[in-house]
């Protein structure tokens, strides 16, 4: 079904083709009827093998025929010699089928099955067959998978496979399959629990150089650039505490990592005694990066506590008492800017990629790598350059301009957080964030917003991202003016919300407004000025002070 060109033929050619095909249909029907009849009658004879062989050579995807052949193998009494020969013949049959149809799932599976039946399987021969096959098509994932099967069965060492991947890559940098394979084997051999890099430092540096060599050899091939992103922008899976604030009546805990692979186990200790806590999880039970506990019975012993700890998975974090906050707090401000052990190398590479960008101004990959490097070295220092690169990227790679907008939003948020932290006292947790007028499109890193009380998001483009505000559970004043919002259907319930500005949006549905008010028991002031919906609303509903026309209140 893939890559078959539709060709124009003459009536005469058409007629010949039609006759040939009609004959094939007749043959197929006769053959398959015979095969099914024999199977039904349990006649496991040579003719059955012969017919199925003929049929599979012309269409190797008829999976049931392979099943029937296996049944013939299993349902006859063979001598060892005979069985060995039978399996050998099957190896040639599958090889022949693969020549025609190298992507046939059933054929590759039959080959695995046969190999497992053999008393003395020749794994070496299979490895060289794979080599041959990969020389014809380096990207055939069936062959790569079969090779993996052989490697496992034959017990080939990681070291040998590492060598193999190096040879493959040096032979041809432009092969995504080889880079993929390399990431697997490297992780297996040199994987690390370090948070910043996927493999141990020494190997990490070597790989960065290897990938730079590859990207400079053929800057337009995409393969190596993906591998590089893995090195520069690791996916954080280890669960770690980012911020926490514990008061007598309420506790907020924020966990920071890309994905939560393991279920989160979180407990609170006061004076080495575990507190009985019911955590509420935000945005939901699964994406539990923000956890909140509301204590019906206040934690009276908190004021005079000697020690307060949070245990997250296997790690214990010690909290400090903050006079400013009148609470026990924990802060890890380093998470957005970690120290690298190889800053020198990263700076060198940045220089090289900047040069590459100058030589090839239309190469988007060099610009993107520039961004990743700058972010890794020092987001604050390179902030303007990063935004510049992003602007260029949206121009030369306009198909993905919305991706770059969202990436920009993410980096802008992180930059602003760093700015806030710079001014923040050690024992203080800043409650105010102003991100107005930044053209933000998404808040994918929304867990960072969990502790802010006054949030200004005016004049952005968050109309399609309202659901991401669900982590603003501590927020009392939220401003979302001028965001092109047409509907509040996806606006989450924020328990503490008191003042909410939705000025100058495109809201039309009064039901949604009433629903919003109903969901927010603490809401005192809702500003809807300059929305079409104003005309439909009574100025005073429920107990909320609605502002539906221009007024001086804010």
């Amino acid at each position: 079904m893939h890559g078959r060109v539709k060709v124009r033929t003459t009536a005469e050619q058409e007629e010949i083709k039609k006759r040939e095909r009609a004959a094939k249909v007749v043959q197929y029907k006769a053959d398959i009827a015979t095969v099914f009849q024999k199977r039904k009658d349990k006649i496991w004879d040579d003719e059955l093998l012969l017919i199925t062989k003929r049929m599979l050579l012309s269409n190797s995807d008829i999976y049931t025929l392979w099943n029937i052949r296996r049944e013939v193998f299993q349902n006859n009494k063979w001598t060892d010699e005979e069985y060995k020969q039978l399996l050998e013949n099957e190896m040639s049959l599958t090889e022949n089928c693969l020549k025609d149809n190298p992507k046939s799932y059933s054929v590759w599976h039959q080959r695995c099955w046969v190999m497992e039946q053999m008393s003395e399987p020749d794994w070496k021969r299979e490895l060289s067959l794979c080599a041959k096959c990969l020389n014809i098509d380096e990207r055939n994932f069936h062959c790569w998978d079969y090779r993996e099967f052989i490697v496992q069965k034959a017990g080939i060492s990681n070291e040998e496979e590492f060598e193999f991947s190096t040879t493959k890559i040096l032979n041809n940098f432009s092969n995504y399959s080889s880079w993929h394979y390399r990431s697997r084997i490297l992780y297996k051999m040199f994987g690390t629990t370090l948070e910043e890099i996927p493999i141990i430092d020494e190997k990490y540096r070597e790989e960065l150089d290897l990938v730079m060599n590859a990207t400079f050899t053929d800057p337009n091939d995409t393969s190596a650039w993906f591998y590089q992103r893995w090195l520069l922008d690791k996916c954080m899976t280890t669960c770690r505490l980012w911020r926490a604030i514990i008061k007598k009546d309420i506790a907020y805990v924020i966990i920071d990592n890309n994905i939560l692979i393991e279920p989160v186990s979180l407990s609170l200790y006061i004076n080495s005694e575990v507190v009985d806590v019911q955590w509420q999880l935000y945005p939901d039970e699964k994406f539990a990066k923000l956890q909140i506990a509301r204590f019906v019975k206040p934690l009276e012993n908190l004021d005079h506590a000697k020690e307060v700890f949070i245990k997250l998975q296997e790690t214990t974090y010690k909290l400090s008492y903050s006079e400013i906050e009148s609470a026990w707090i924990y802060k890890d401000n380093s998470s957005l800017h970690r120290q690298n052990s190889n800053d020198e190398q990263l700076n060198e590479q940045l220089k090289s990629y900047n040069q590459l960008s100058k030589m090839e101004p239309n190469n988007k990959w060099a610009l993107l790598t520039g961004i990743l490097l700058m972010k890794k070295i020092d987001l604050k220092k390179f902030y303007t350059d990063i935004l510049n690169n992003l602007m260029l990227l949206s121009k030369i790679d306009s198909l993905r301009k919305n991706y770059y907008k969202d990436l920009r939003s993410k980096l802008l948020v992180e930059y602003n957080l760093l700015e806030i932290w710079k001014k923040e006292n050690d024992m203080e947790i800043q409650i105010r964030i102003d991100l107005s007028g930044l053209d933000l499109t998404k808040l994918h890193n929304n867990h960072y917003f969990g502790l802010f009380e006054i949030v200004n998001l005016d004049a952005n483009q968050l109309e399609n991202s309202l659901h991401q505000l669900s982590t603003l559970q501590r927020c009392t004043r939220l401003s979302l003016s001028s965001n092109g919002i047409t509907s509040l259907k996806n606006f989450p319930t924020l328990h503490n919300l008191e003042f909410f500005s939705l000025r100058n949006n495109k809201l039309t549905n009064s039901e949604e407004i009433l629903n919003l008010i109903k969901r927010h028991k603490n809401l005192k002031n809702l500003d809807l000025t300059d929305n079409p919906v104003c005309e439909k609303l009574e100025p005073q509903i429920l107990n909320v002070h609605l502002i539906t026309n221009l007024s001086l209140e804010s």
Partner: protein
Amino acid sequence: MTTVKHDIELPSNIPELLLEKHANYLISYGTNKDEYNYSQTEHMRMSGMYWGLTALDLMGKLEQTNKEEVLEFIKQCQSDSGGISASMQHDPHLLYTLSAIQILCMYDALNVINVDKIVNYVKERQQADGSFAGDQWGEVDVRFSFCAVATLSLLNRLDAIDVEKAVQFVLKCMNFDGGFGSKPGSESHAGLIYCCTGLLSITGHLHLIDADRLGWWLCERQLPSGGLNGRPEKLPDVCYSWWVLSALTILGRLHWIDKKALIDYILTCQDVESGGFSDRPGDMVDPFHTLFGLTALSLLDKNFSLKPINPTYCMPEYIIDRLGLKPSRLDA
């Protein structure tokens, strides 16, 4: 944009969406059962029927199909083991079991088969490591994990298998690029990414995906022609419009590709004479690419006269609603 080695050029004339022709193409496909292409695809008939019927339903033409004939065929394809085969006398397999259940859900006719036996067949395919074998012969692939989970969820019987273990196996197939391959160690591929994202969507485990990383890899599938490929450095193909778009939709990141450019690519893959879609402009059409051309258009633009498609199940949304299913998504 820099030159891309593996891509094609689109003609300047982009045809309209030829719904009438596509419907006629699909309805006539299979009316002549002696036709060569038809007999050559007997070993995947059940999926072929699912592709054709789903496409027709999206175009509002399900009434023009022969429901009774289809139901009778499915009934005859259920084996003693409970599983359903591609065609009569062929062997049961999870791939065709799912296709059959999808068709039965469309026709609202689950009562014509023995559901308990299906559940049992699917359950017996689960391996100790949580993976699923496609049939009794042991081939393991995340495609089969998806088939198993989708089938059982359509039957409201997910409790029959160890869902946590099924999820754990899918996680073992996750790669450095955030994507998924067919088994642990296999390279990422858009079709398998769809299967894994779909499985995690059905079971409510989307938090295990690094959506920014995978979403980026997926939007990088778009080539200057507007078409999408399924892996880096491969040619564009209409069916990847579906695998990539459905996954991006589930991840709440459909806007990361250029919709207009992709719509143009898909429309160019129509056969303006015979109807139907092909993988690339000028190639032979088939029901498989016809379905995925239409489902992609349905996700991309509500203004086409197509029913909305559910990205997780690849079935019309109204059927998923009727079944009361709510597969999770990251955009709400």
